[in-house]
């Protein structure tokens, strides 16, 4: 044995290389698997069980490969080192997120998806089937609003003209009112309308959208400043979760204690609009409306005499507290998770206003708009 092993010391490359491979394998086998990556804000694949059927159709192999990538020992160290190395080459981009001036992070969206036209068509069909007015508000993204802060020459999609196409198609339908949030969010230089490290707008940004929406829907614009304001510091959002580099400025989330009777979620009922549990975790923006729920019901009876049904993405979560000031009851539908019948919801709220509130890149990317229809039978 010794005779065989001794010469290997003359070949340190062999020893080091196989030591690394074997140690990493041992790491995979011995360490407890993580459910969730705080740093990247996503769930991680665990080691799959071997079954004959999974072997036969190849799904075991595919899952195992994802597991190997996501559960690599020292994952955070490796991922972080990569981000710093990328930064060290002078690059402004890592994993599709680019850092611009003033430490703002931007999502690089380079193309229109085919899904966009399907989604627009779904909204049009929905409007045609409906015997009442609907309001459609499409929010710009940080890339459009903060164009002056983008890294030089970064490719951007002409999002506004895409949104205009959408408006153009929808305004051909008599009962559809398009609300132009692009106009509402422009011309506020020096104010922070979007987070630096996250794709969402800030509470302030949502406030300008609220004024425009209220105006369009014939609501009184109330001042949210009369309620107590809270600040959550040290927020690093979804853009940071991908970028992971250095030179980041943390964001601060603001929210207001707008009083409600109840917020009825799928699994429980609460009595405020912000989940304070989320403050300690990574996903602090998820505090608004307790995150995305399939169907949440806000009741805040004040004799306003108006109800609202809102179909929305996560942008709306920090906008809803504003709307609560105007409505007695708001039904909040997130089509990504909704499994019920839209028809039932509309029948239950036969006199309610209907608002679709999405951000542009969601309309471009999402593939759940097909659920936006009455299911018969």
């Amino acid at each position: 044995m010794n005779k065989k092993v001794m010469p290997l010391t003359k070949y340190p490359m062999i020893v080091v290389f196989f030591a690394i491979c074997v140690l990493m394998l041992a790491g995979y086998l011995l360490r407890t698997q993580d459910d969730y990556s705080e740093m990247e804000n996503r769930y991680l694949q665990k080691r799959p069980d071997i079954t004959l059927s999974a072997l036969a159709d190849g799904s075991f192999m595919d899952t195992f490969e994802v597991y190997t990538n996501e559960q690599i020992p020292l994952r955070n160290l490796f991922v972080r080192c990569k981000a710093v190395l990328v930064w060290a080459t002078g690059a402004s981009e890592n994993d599709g997120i680019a850092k611009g001036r003033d430490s703002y992070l931007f999502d690089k969206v380079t193309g229109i998806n085919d899904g966009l036209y399907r989604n627009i068509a779904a909204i049009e069909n929905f409007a045609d089937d409906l015997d009442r007015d609907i309001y459609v508000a499409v929010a710009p993204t940080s890339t459009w609003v903060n164009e002056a802060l983008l890294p030089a020459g970064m490719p951007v999609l002409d999002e506004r003209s895409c949104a205009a196409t959408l408006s153009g198609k929808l305004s051909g339908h008599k009962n559809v009112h398009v609300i132009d949030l692009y106009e509402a969010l422009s011309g506020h230089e020096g104010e922070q309308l979007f987070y630096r490290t996250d794709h969402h707008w800030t509470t302030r940004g949502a406030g300008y959208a609220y004024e425009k929406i209220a105006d369009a829907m014939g609501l009184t614009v109330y001042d949210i400043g009369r309620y107590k304001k809270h600040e959550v510091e040290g927020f690093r959002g979804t853009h940071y979760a991908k970028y992971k580099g250095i030179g980041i400025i943390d964001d601060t989330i603001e929210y207001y204690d707008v009083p409600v009777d109840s917020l009825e979620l799928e699994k429980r009922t609460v009595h405020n609009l912000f989940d304070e549990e989320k403050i300690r975790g990574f996903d602090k923006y998820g505090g608004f409306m307790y995150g995305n729920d399939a169907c949440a019901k806000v009741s805040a009876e004040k004799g306003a005499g108006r109800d609202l049904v809102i179909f929305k993405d996560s942008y709306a979560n920090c906008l809803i507290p504003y709307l609560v000031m105007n409505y007695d009851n708001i039904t909040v539908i997130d089509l990504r998770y909704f499994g019920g019948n839209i028809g039932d919801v509309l029948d239950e709220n036969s006199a309610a206003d209907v608002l679709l509130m999405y951000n542009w890149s969601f309309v471009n990317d999402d593939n759940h708009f097909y659920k936006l229809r009455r299911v018969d039978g």
Partner: protein
Amino acid sequence: MVFSSLLFLFWFIPIFFAAYYVVPAKLRNTALFLGSIVFYAWGEPSYLILIFVSILVNYLAGLLLAGRGESAVPSAKEKAVFILALVFDFGMLFIFKYTGFFVRNINAVTHLSIPDPGLTLPLGISFYTFQIASYVIDLYRGRIKAERNILTLGTYLVMFPQLIAGPIVVYSRVSEELHGRKIEPAAVSDGIMTFILGLASKVLIANTVGSLWKDLGSIGYANISMPLAWLGVAAFTLQIYFDFNGYSLMAIGLGKMLGFNIPQNFNNPYVSTSLTEFWRRWHMTLSAWFRDYVYIPLGGNRKGQLRTYVNLFIVWFLTGFWHGAGWNFILWGLFFFVFLSLEKSFLAAFLEKHRILARIYAVLFIGLSWMIFAITDIAQLGIYFSRLVNITSAGSTDVLYYLRNYIVVTILGCILSTPVLKPLYERIKGRPAGIVMHVILLFVCICYLADASYNPFLYFRF
């Protein structure tokens, strides 16, 4: 499975090599065969059967051709066996790779609607077909002996280093090693370093510049400025070299770790001074295969000028078509036919006298040829070429973003495409500094793989 994956590095390598080094020498082929089957089946279990049938058919053909001596005239039976074996080997390649292409084109011309069976390309079929064909052809020519052990022949065909994307190893080159090889620590150590270099080429350079190229596709060729279009040419030119050379280096390194000498596949192709020279330095095992099994059997350049050009045309048409079942690949092959013919007739003599001009000429046309290769849609290709000469877009700022993000890796890629650093590398390779360098490279590769969002292998399509 691909080499540049954590799965290969940290599961396959430790488990497979532990087994391979521990088993007695006479079981090494068995270990290599089984390991290669796992490696291949990981991505595509359903096509294993095709490989097994191919091994069996060629093994039997080999036994029937075993009596062929160098000078003897082949019997009618041997001729028939030989032809049937080739029809089987290339028939499989043809069916799985080209059926869809021909069905679509026949439908387009005749307005029929023959259904496209929609076969997916079995991984590595273009490569292993050429390898096994070399066995049958050399046997028929009486240059090698028939393999009596089916496991040995099977191991040759499926051995994982070069199964999927080459280098194309002809049977005669490795038959000795297949029957008994020594595993020398010096070669293993060397192999590990070669493997790491290949991994770094692929992960750090090819994948990085590759994401620039991918971006141009999603922005849309019609929307990019002239400078960005040229940067795109550079990016793809670097991507395909570091991708494919990286893969070949990994294969050669793994071969050494197993006790095999897999031939060199690239020799700094981008420093060529003509396209003829480029093809002596690029994918050398493929060019050699076409030379030995197509060009020379057709008569090469010994049957007069006209026949020489006809032979060149056949070789380059086939080279193009081998790379993919699409018109752009045929166009790409014929592009080289035209330039190699021009060089043969007069251009070479001119380039000989103007060395600097010759380098610029070679790099420029190599880069442009890659566009024909990369853009499979002919209309899109036209758009791309129109952007390359669109002077009015020259002032656009889009190139700034890409320069900032990719300038370091682009420069690094350009330097590493030439042999300038080779003497330095050879000097430090065996020293502690060399070991440290390789370990750092491996660490950086792991970092990039752990965060990988873009990790394709270009030559897997073939």
